[in-house]
């Protein structure tokens, strides 16, 4: 069966709720009959089977994550979502001070099996419905972070996240959902996968090589992973062989996989849709430098959004998001110089 990410997540959530009665969903507009099933249709129709476990909330992000935290402490397994990742910032105390820290502060006695879902990506909505927040949470010990770029991974990682006893934050990309109907996105990239019938999982903490190559390692997640594959295809015609790694989990990073690849290629480019300052590239690049400096044939390169908020004007937005051409240029320059 071929599914898009929204459909795959919907099926995974449905199956997990059927499997374990402690699993419930909480969020805005997620189960209103005649509504959207969340901002991007992920929970569409689930209320028909699980009326008491699809909890529609007021517009209260502190309340959503506080409720998830409290319910998890009492043994439930909440899946809490926000309509746009940017709204996580309204709930930072509950996420960072409470959900991430309570187990540690309790001396390891308590567990916090919370799944948090947040759509990210710069998509024609201006600055406040756009931010890719992965780096914010990578500096927050206590939370695991996953970011699926295919429907197969979305389903497998969602299952792993729900079954994990630690808090897991899942970033999803608006242009990868494949949402349909009135919630369809323009500029969508196909991230659908053939989904097996069996109850598979994708383990948290494992990345994947999306494309094998010899000359340079490109590390990218979500939409940037797809753009990097496009760039790699463009470069193949020029005789440049790129290995593309999708970390899938951003914390804990699959450092073994990354280092193994960079040992082989000696060159690494990290691509991210968030600003360069304090970003994904800073963390991954520094890890590479710390662990295998002698293998590097070239300085680590980063392709990122500028150190500004996302602009609205379509012409500026296109400049803001790293495009496949920019990724390819960075690789070309690296190979010319080193």
């Amino acid at each position, binding site marked *: 069966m071929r599914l898009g990410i929204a459909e795959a997540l919907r099926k995974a959530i449905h199956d997990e709720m059927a499997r374990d009665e402690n699993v419930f969903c909480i969020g805005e507009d997620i189960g209103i009959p005649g509504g959207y099933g969340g901002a991007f249709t992920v929970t569409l129709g689930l209320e028909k089977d699980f009326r008491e476990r699809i909890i529609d909330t*007021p517009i209260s992000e502190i309340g959503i994550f506080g409720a998830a935290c409290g319910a998890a402490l009492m043994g439930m397994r909440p899946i809490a979502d926000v309509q746009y990742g940017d709204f996580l910032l309204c709930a930072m105390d509950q996420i960072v001070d409470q959900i991430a820290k309570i187990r540690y502060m*309790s001396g*390891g006695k308590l567990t916090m099996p919370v799944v948090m879902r947040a759509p990210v990506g710069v998509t024609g909505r201006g600055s406040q419905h756009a931010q890719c927040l992965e780096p914010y949470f990578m500096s927050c010990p206590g939370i695991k972070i996953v970011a699926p770029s295919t429907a197969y991974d979305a389903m497998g990682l969602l299952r792993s996240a729900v079954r994990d006893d630690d808090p897991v934050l899942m970033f999803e990309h608006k242009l990868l959902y494949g949402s349909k109907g009135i919630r369809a996105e323009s500029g969508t990239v196909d991230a659908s996968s053939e989904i097996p019938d069996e109850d598979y999982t994708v383990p948290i903490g494992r990345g994947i090589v999306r494309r094998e190559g010899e000359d340079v390692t490109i590390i990218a997640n979500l939409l940037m992973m797809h753009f990097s594959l496009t760039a790699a295809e463009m470069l193949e015609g020029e005789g440049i062989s790129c290995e593309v790694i999708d970390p899938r989990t951003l914390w804990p990073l699959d450092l073994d996989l990354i280092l193994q690849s960079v040992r082989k290629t000696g060159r690494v480019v990290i691509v991210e849709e968030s600003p360069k300052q304090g970003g994904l590239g800073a963390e991954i690049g520094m890890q590479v430098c710390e662990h295998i400096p002698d293998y590097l044939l070239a300085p680590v390169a980063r392709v990122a959004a500028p150190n500004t908020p996302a602009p609205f004007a379509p012409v500026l937005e296109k400049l803001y998001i790293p495009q496949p051409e920019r990724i390819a240029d960075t690789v070309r320059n690296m190979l010319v110089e080193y």
Partner: protein
Amino acid sequence: MKHNETMKDLGKDALKGMLRRMHEIRQFEEKIRFLFLEGKMPGTVHQYIGMEACAVGVCTALEEKDVIASTHRPHGHAIARGVSMDSIMGELYGKTTGCCGGKGGSMHVGDLERGMLPAIAIVGGNLPIVMGMGLAFKIRKEPRVAVSFFGDGASNEGAFHEALNMAAVYGVPALFVCENNRYGASTSVKRVMNIEHVSDRAAAYGMRGDMADGMDVIDVYTHALDAAARARKGDGPTLLELETFRLCGHSRRDPNNYMTDEEKKYWQKRDPIPSFETLLKEGKYMTDAEIKDLREAVEMSVDKAIQFGQQSPEPDPEALYQGLYVSMEVPR
């Protein structure tokens, strides 16, 4: 006599237990104040002196399966809920015997096995969590009540608004206990609130609001019991305001110069411990000699707890990396 019927219902043992808890809190707080000033205790402390009737009155009204959540001023709630003084003291000293293994400290004492979440030290932070605990009880149809203790200051946080609104909308079995001690650190409520009572805010959520005398342990108990019973049978949450006062500083060396002498004197006269003792004597539940014995027994147990805390082992350096995740090691 005041509270005659309620005290009769509670009976001598329960009443004596309540007084004992109040003395435990008072002596615990007074002794650690000196230990702190002498530089013998690490960290910081926020003390509960004067507010003992609030924690003890509410906790006496609860059942074993109920869960409370507290604030940066949690010692009183922990003692009232039955977390052992030894394990609280161990926590204050950052020792392995602490109720959080030394990882929490003064502002995070608690033990869920004793019905108290490790305290939440962000003002207002526990209210949404308590709403969520209540939601879990409601989804599972468990006859349990979730209780949030918070101060007047927390009622000005956004978290208060979101938590109370959602608690009311879902009708969760929760009790939001506002200990209005008139000051958020050094700031008088009069400067930061344009209404007289925090409980008036309940109306904004379509929630039941109630008030009790936070210096009168039996009055607190009576109102808390009523609110807990309503929550337990599905009648939804209550915002219960307790009028109380800190007969001590906000934290550490605070001499409360922002309070007037007149105000301090007024509340000092309403100290909840002597007034409860008077009630117990008038009702012939306890004699002066019994009260003196109780005080001395408490003093011994507090001294024992201090010794326990001081003599307990320090955490192993490896503990730094332990207890964060269930299913993975901390990447180094």
